[in-house]
């Protein structure tokens, strides 16, 4: 691996330079050009020689050191591409409306679509429940025994699995959310809070419905 150098100190110094080069290329978000690398490795480093050595080391492996334009970067080996890319779906961000709807189903289940809309104060767009159902997070529950016998929605076991919960009981309650700072409490308008005295526990019950 190391050629034509016999002095042990020099060998050690060269190995350290190689290791640093490897780490820099690994951690960088963009390809790095030789000038930048030289700046990081110090004036006594022979950057082209080090790059060649690293390239040779990685050539047979699952990851290769490749040159793109003026820069160098690690890339997974081209021949492995078919094995790496099994599904081409790109992960997407769930819309805010969908996250909120999912949260409301989780906290209020079983809940009908009309109830979700009453709680959120806006109509639920057509695709929202579909998306949540396609992902296996929600499923239809029993019909409510009221006029029209509307369908209710509940969360699935996959929902618990995805969010790392053991049971629905482990979902933080409204007070827990408030205490954790996820739900800012209403502005304190009382003139004199008693110093460090915790604010009285605000009532949970809310005025929806």
């Amino acid at each position, binding site marked *: 691996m190391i050629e034509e150098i016999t002095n042990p100190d020099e060998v050690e110094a060269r190995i350290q330079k190689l290791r640093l080069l490897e780490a820099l290329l690994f951690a960088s978000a963009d390809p790095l050009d030789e000038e930048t690398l030289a700046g990081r490795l110090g004036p006594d480093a022979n950057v082209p020689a080090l790059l060649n050595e690293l390239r040779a080391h990685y050539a047979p492996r699952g990851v290769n050191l490749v040159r793109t334009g003026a820069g160098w970067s690690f890339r997974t080996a081209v021949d492995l591409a078919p094995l790496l890319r099994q599904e081409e779906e790109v992960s997407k961000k*769930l819309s805010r409306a969908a996250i*909120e709807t*999912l949260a409301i189903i989780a906290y209020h289940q079983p809940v009908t679509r009309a109830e979700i809309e009453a709680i959120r104060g806006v109509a639920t767009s057509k695709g929202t429940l579909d998306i949540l159902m396609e992902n296996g997070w929600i499923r239809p529950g029993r019909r409510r025994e009221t006029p029209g016998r509307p369908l209710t929605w509940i969360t699935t076991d996959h929902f618990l699995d995805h969010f790392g919960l053991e049971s629905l009981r482990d979902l933080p309650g409204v007070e827990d959310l408030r205490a954790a700072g996820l739900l800012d409490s209403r502005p304190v308008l009382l*003139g*004199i809070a*008693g*110093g*460090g005295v915790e604010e009285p526990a605000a009532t949970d019950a809310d005025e929806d419905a």
Partner: protein
Amino acid sequence: MAGEDFEEDRLTPDIAAEQLVLVLDGFEGPLDMLLALGREQKVDLTRISILQLADQYLAFIAEARKVRLELAADYLVMAAWLAYLKSRLLIPQIEDEEPSGEDMAAALAFQLQRLEAMKEASAKLFGRPRLGHDIFARGAPEDVDIQRKSVFQVTLYDLLKAYGEHKKRKENGVLYIEPVRLYSLEDAVQRLSEMLGRMPDWATLSSFLPDGVRGALLTRSALAAHFAATLELAKAGQVELRQDGAFAPIYVRRAQRQE
């Protein structure tokens, strides 16, 4: 009335108060402050003098009250507790009283050690090489989503945050009318209950009044509210009151449960 207030403010040694506020800002509550005072003894926490510690703490609180610094109730409760502990340590034991002064001192020493241990642990934890600071992940992850269990990237935090924001919007939709600035009976009951549960012995009613309440109307309403609150709580059997004579100070303590 305005003139009187003005006079009062002028006499307040603002600079001393500011310095104390600065010192206080450095602490995360009374236990943290006790720990800092304890470190000044420069001995192992297991051999610390709790009595000396109590004196130091009480001296600090006295100083703060002298400059009329508003202290959080937690600090006052700790002061009352330490004064009580001190009396228990100095005065011969009353047979049937549990726990003993020594037990209380040992419990406090344990709490200080435990807090110290956690402070050291957090320093060690954050002294470790950290991802994104000292150790780095792949800078250019390639677009193969290997771990995909779901097409969508949503975390529990996202879910809870969404629910919290939804709740917040609902709350903000309600109109609140700013109350008249009077000290309410409810606040006084709340404050008294908070403090009393942790006050070990008789204390004067005036020691419960919040410091730093400005304005004559507010001060009067605070006194009235606290007085009414003690009556309320006495009626509910939660406190006991004592007054040694007309116009003498009124003492309060939490009701002693008969067993």
